[in-house]
């Protein structure tokens, strides 16, 4: 509605079909890609719950039979068809199909089959929720002797106790209506087989909070990941182009109970899984990594594995982004969409995202600008309130939507083909050592912090060692293997690691630019003090690190929250709930350079004549040069997209695959 009224210019990740239809009919620019996105229902699988619920003798969610039974009670296709008309698609694995070669097509999908609580059949013959529960030793109790399933009925655990109250943390309707409705829909199916706890059966079974109100997303995800204090929860994650997040979610070294803020909230501790995850994370052999990734997905879905199904994967989604029709320069990236912002989700700190391109390139059609006080403004919808602005502790996608505009990585991602793109680092080099690897980054010498201090290798060293020395929990997978960071010269530094991993190279490329020394280079009383610091609470020039004076461009920075990126945080108004970021007038790239970069990157995927659209003209030109090698009179370097000196089928296929793609929309 706000879009149609012109109060908002951009809303991303729309999931309500009628919204899309209305916006499309009204002439808004709509872009679509499949998404690097996952939603799952997660369980606390620790058999010993004495740390939070000492009254529990038997914890059903620690029993794979119970979790397996629940997996068959969730009618993913039915619910998603009714609620989102398949903008959200059913998911059977912890890796979405959009991650293509990493996705395992053979994972058991545990189809919807609730079964009959009154039957006497058992799994595996009766492969239903009720059949699996009976196989696991659970017994249905027809409490009111009605011969029918009513709200009084419940199940007994194998030890004879009634099922305990198991609360599912879900967002409130006001916070995320669709997810709230999805859980209510699952509730209805669980009611039908006596598994839903309610006031009439003594809260025996799964349930929402008693009022079925739900919670703030950022509140309950903090209970889950910071305190491991939960029974079950629903969450969605924005993912990146690689599945190394599986290590962070399921490796025993990342347990949230031992390391608050880490991502294995489920308490999975499985040596078989650990070995596979270590291969996925640390191997440098691509085939070995994809094989390990496939096996991880199978093992997590295999009910023969006692630690299987710590999550029930629920859905992944297509990304529909909508823009005011007077906006130009929207860059669509497969998997990532054309922009971020409206998604109530968590975001893992796991490497660079390519979404920077829309933000750098978006502009108003001349004559149709939204202008306030002489400045052109674009109003972007943010789906949730930011929880805090500390880049060491913030976890929600809403906060990172803002932080990402300020923080630039050393390496970014080519939006059209997802290859690495040099950014603050011009180049990098990996050398394997007997104990791990050394990664040397060569930085540009024309990058400055937004307050005017030059960004150098000393800043990168400080940031990486700070995160390691203060054991910042959410970055544990990235710092746990750093042995040393060595500055070679002001624009070259080497990270020495006691492990090899392709993914660590990207993690460090993000973390190296996180913390300006002029703010963070001080003695902190504790690791907690580091996490609790709010850089936006201090106007720039106050509370600086000892020995630092305000930088030459301090006037354009308003608080101690800043980075090297294209936008500068001004303020967040928590009452009216909006946040302004201003363009960085001292950014290291000119608008012309940004244009040139986009044109070259789009050429790499088949735009022979660099006219911003890949069409039959490009195909014809490539066909003319087909089969020609360097030195041949017919060789045309503009048709050799992969620059291997030979215009061959790969170049033709590159062009054909991207046919009708546009460099920017509309």
């Amino acid at each position, binding site marked *: 509605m*706000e879009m149609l009224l012109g109060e908002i210019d951009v809303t991303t990740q729309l999931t309500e079909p009628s919204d899309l239809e209305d916006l499309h009919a009204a002439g808004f620019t709509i872009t679509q890609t499949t998404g690097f996105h996952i939603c799952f229902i997660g369980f606390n699988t620790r058999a010993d719950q004495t740390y939070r619920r000492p009254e529990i003798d038997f914890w059903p969610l620690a029993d794979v039979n119970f979790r397996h039974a629940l997996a068959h009670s969730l009618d993913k296709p039915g619910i998603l068809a009714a609620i989102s008309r398949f903008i959200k698609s059913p998911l059977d694995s912890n890796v979405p199909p959009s991650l293509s070669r990493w996705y395992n097509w053979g994972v058991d999908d545990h189809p919807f089959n609730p079964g009959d609580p009154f039957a006497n059949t058992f799994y595996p013959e009766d492969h239903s929720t009720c059949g699996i529960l009976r196989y696991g030793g659970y017994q249905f109790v027809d409490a009111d002797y009605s011969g029918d399933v009513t709200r009084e009925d419940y199940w007994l655990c194998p030890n004879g106790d009634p099922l305990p109250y198991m609360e599912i943390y879900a967002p409130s309707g006001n*916070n995320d209506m669709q997810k709230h409705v999805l859980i209510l*829909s699952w509730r209805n199916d669980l009611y039908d087989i006596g598994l839903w706890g309610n006031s009439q059966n003594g809260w025996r079974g799964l349930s929402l909070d008693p009022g079925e109100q739900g919670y703030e997303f950022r509140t309950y995800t903090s209970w889950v990941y910071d305190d491991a204090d939960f029974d079950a929860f629903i969450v969605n994650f924005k993912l990146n182009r690689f599945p190394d997040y599986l290590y962070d979610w399921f490796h025993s070294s990342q347990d949230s109970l031992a390391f608050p803020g880490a991502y294995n909230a489920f308490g999975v501790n499985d040596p078989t899984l650990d070995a596979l995850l270590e291969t996925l994370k640390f191997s440098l052999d691509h085939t070995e990594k994809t094989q390990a990734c496939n096996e991880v997905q199978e093992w997590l879905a295999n009910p023969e594995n006692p630690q299987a199904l710590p999550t029930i994967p629920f859905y992944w989604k297509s990304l529909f982004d909508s823009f005011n029709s007077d906006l130009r320069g929207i860059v669509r990236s497969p998997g990532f969409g054309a922009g971020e912002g*409206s998604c109530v989700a968590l975001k893992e700190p796991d490497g660079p995202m390519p979404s920077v391109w829309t933000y750098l390139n978006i502009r108003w059609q001349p004559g149709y600008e939204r202008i306030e006080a002489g400045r*052109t403004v674009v109003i972007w*919808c943010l789906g*949730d309130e930011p929880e805090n602005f500390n880049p060491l502790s913030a976890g929600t996608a809403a906060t990172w939507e803002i932080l990402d505009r300020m923080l630039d990585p050393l390496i970014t991602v080519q939006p059209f083909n997802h290859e690495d793109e040099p950014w603050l680092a011009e180049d990098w080099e990996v050398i394997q050592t007997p104990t791990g690897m050394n990664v040397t980054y060569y930085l540009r010498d024309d990058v400055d912090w937004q307050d005017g201090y030059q960004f150098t290798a000393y800043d990168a060293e400080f940031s990486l060692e700070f995160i390691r020395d203060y054991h910042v929990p959410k970055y544990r997978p990235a710092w746990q293997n750093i042995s040393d960071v060595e500055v070679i010269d002001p624009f070259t530094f080497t990270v020495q690691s006691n492990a090899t991993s392709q993914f660590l190279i990207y993690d460090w490329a993000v973390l190296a630019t996180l913390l300006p020394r002029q703010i963070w280079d001080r003695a902190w009383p504790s690791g907690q003090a580091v996490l609790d610091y709010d850089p936006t609470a201090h106007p720039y020039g106050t509370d600086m690190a000892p020995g630092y004076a305000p930088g030459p461009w301090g006037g354009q920075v308003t608080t101690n929250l800043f980075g090297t990126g294209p936008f500068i945080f001004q303020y967040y108004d928590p009452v009216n709930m909006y946040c302004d970021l201003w363009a960085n007038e001292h950014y290291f790239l000119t608008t012309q350079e940004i244009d040139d970069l986009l044109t070259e990157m789009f050429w790499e995927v088949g735009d022979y004549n660099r006219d911003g659209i890949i069409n039959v003209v490009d195909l014809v030109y490539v066909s003319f040069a087909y089969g020609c090698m360097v030195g041949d009179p017919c060789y045309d370097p503009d048709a050799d997209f992969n620059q291997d000196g030979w215009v061959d089928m790969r170049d033709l296929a590159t062009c054909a695959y991207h046919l009708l793609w546009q460099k920017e929309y509309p």
Partner: protein
Amino acid sequence: MKRIAYLALVSLTLLVLLTSMTLAQTGPKIDVLRYEVLRNPSFDFYPPWKCYLVKSMSQLS
């Protein structure tokens, strides 16, 4: 004559320099990026009955 030519050359150089500095705008192409928190952007369109689309509560008991 020489002086005029010299002045013209200096003026022209300055003009070119100033123009190129103006044109070499850095960074993004908009001045302000504003985020407005609009929870549940779909909420306005969401008919309440849809909450119970799959199965209504009355069907349960």
